[in-house]
């Protein structure tokens, strides 16, 4: 459905996106992750045809966005970082205008606007002027505008920014509903959001690809061992010695003591070791208060992936950097 092929974007001497390639299959939700300034917005602008890539090309449904712009753009719904609304129009007027822009046939226009308002919970404010709406409602108007014409590809730049928790959950739910009929690309720097909604995650940093995988695989890939956390009431040195002596425990580390309850972090070779640990502690007469496996969070994965990025790459000149510089009027 979406193919991003070796795409680069330079802003003068600055390389905002470098040789980025990934694809999204029909009906898939792809999360686009990266720290501030990673190039997420830039990439989304390249996908939607707002900016032309300096090198490489983007294909939507087999159509090259650059050369077949009108046909490709018909298949795309786009929520930019800043919702592109006209403050003087009412929600209804604005969505009708968008429906016209997106060439929704006039007979279906009212229905399309009503459905989009329904899905983004905008019905109560349909006749209010957008400039008088709160930021979260403006964001919803932006989402409504993007899904209005039932696009095959939905590109959402930080769709939940500025929404209240309830609306965040509803928006995630909406995105999951949309997937299936639509391919969805969402950018975010909130990793739990990607984990909650996406089947696949594309991580970029400094404009370059870092990793592409499912959230589960990413979590898995980075840990060869399991980590468990343990809370025990009892004598600290004796417990540490005991834990270290259990077969299959690779590392036993005391972390802290609070109200006579000590916390330990264990690295274990496999999950079966957990039972043995529990048995031995209870057997020694100490109080086992908690024993739980710790998953590496996406945050940690993200940090470990992006931390290893070589520094100083930013200014490296790409081949033929100046080949396509236009003459500025």
């Amino acid at each position, binding site marked *: 459905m979406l193919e991003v092929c070796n795409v680069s974007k330079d802003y003068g001497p600055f390389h905002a996106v470098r040789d980025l390639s990934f694809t999204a299959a029909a009906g898939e939700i792809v999360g686009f992750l990266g720290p501030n300034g990673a190039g997420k917005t830039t990439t989304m602008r390249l996908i939607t045809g707002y900016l032309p890539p300096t090198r490489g090309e983007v294909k939507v449904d087999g159509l090259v966005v650059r050369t077949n712009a009108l046909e490709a753009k018909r298949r*795309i719904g786009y929520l*930019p970082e800043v919702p*592109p609304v*006209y403050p*003087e*129009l009412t929600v209804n007027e604005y969505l009708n205008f968008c429906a*016209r*822009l997106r060439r929704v046939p006039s007979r279906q226009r009212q229905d399309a606007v009503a459905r989009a308002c329904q899905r983004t919970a905008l019905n109560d404010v349909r006749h209010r002027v957008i400039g008088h709406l709160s930021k979260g409602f403006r964001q919803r108007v932006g989402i409504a505008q993007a899904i209005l014409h039932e696009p095959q590809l939905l590109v959402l730049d930080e769709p939940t920014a500025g929404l209240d928790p309830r609306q965040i959950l509803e928006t995630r739910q909406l995105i999951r509903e949309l997937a299936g009929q639509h391919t969805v690309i969402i950018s975010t720097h909130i990793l739990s959001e990607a984990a909650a909604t996406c089947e696949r995650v594309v991580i970029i940093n400094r404009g370059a690809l870092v990793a592409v995988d499912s959230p589960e695989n990413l979590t898995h890939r980075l840990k060869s061992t399991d980590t468990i956390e343990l809370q025990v009431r009892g004598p600290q040195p004796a417990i540490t010695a005991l834990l270290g002596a259990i077969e299959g425990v690779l590392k036993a580390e005391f972390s802290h003591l609070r109200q006579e309850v000590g916390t330990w972090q264990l690295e274990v070779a496999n999950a079966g070791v957990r039972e043995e640990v529990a048995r031995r502690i209870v057997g020694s007469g100490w109080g086992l208060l908690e024993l739980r496996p710790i998953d590496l969070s996406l945050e940690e994965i993200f940090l470990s992936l992006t931390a290893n990025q070589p520094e100083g790459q930013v200014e490296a000149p790409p081949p033929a950097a100046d080949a396509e510089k236009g003459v500025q009027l």
Partner: protein
Amino acid sequence: MSGMFAVMRKEWKTYLITPAAYVVVALFAFVSAFFFYNMLAVFVMQSLNGGFGGGNLNVDVQVLQPLMFDIGITLLFLLPMVTMRQYAEEANSGTMELLKTAPIRRMDVILGKFFAALGLLIVLLIITGFYVGVVAHYGAPDLRAAAISLLGLLLLGGAFLAIGLLISSFTKSQVVAGVITFVLFLVLWIADWPVAYSSGTAAHVIGYLSVTSHLQNFTQGILDLKDVIFYLSLIVAGLFLTARRMELAE
């Protein structure tokens, strides 16, 4: 095409619900009525004095022609207020991203904005037509000449709008767009002044660019293809360069 109409409709809606267009129409009505009333008053006074000064009294020469010319000047002052926001506002509010990622052509946006502004200009010319109607009610003006004058004003205004649109595509600041547009209109207006004292080619070339001298023919009821082409080429050049500008800005 449908994209162009969508943009045009949206612009008109904005004219109807924001004060800017009303201010332009109100200022125009006030200023043009002032011109008209004064010219008419002077004319009526001279008529009552029995053609004091010896010349033949002629409502075309003494009222309508100078009125049309002064309305041209009024447009010079007012139209920058119409065009200055056209692209600046889209760039500032982020709606440019909506327009550029919609399945419409660059030209749809440009023409939509241009024709919407042209619609506003036509409202101003209808007000002007009202003055012609008043004169026609009490006297016998040359209606053909008046119609040609109005066509001239439409072309002049159209050229102003196309140039104003081009300038607004260069800056995110409405103030900067407005000031530059106004100064440029002024330069185009007075460009034929050097012709009065200089016979050099340069003066004549520059003088040719003056929108004033071309308007003069229209106000005198002379419909010259040369003048029509002059304004039309300004309009086409303005719109075309705006399209180029949008293309290169990417």
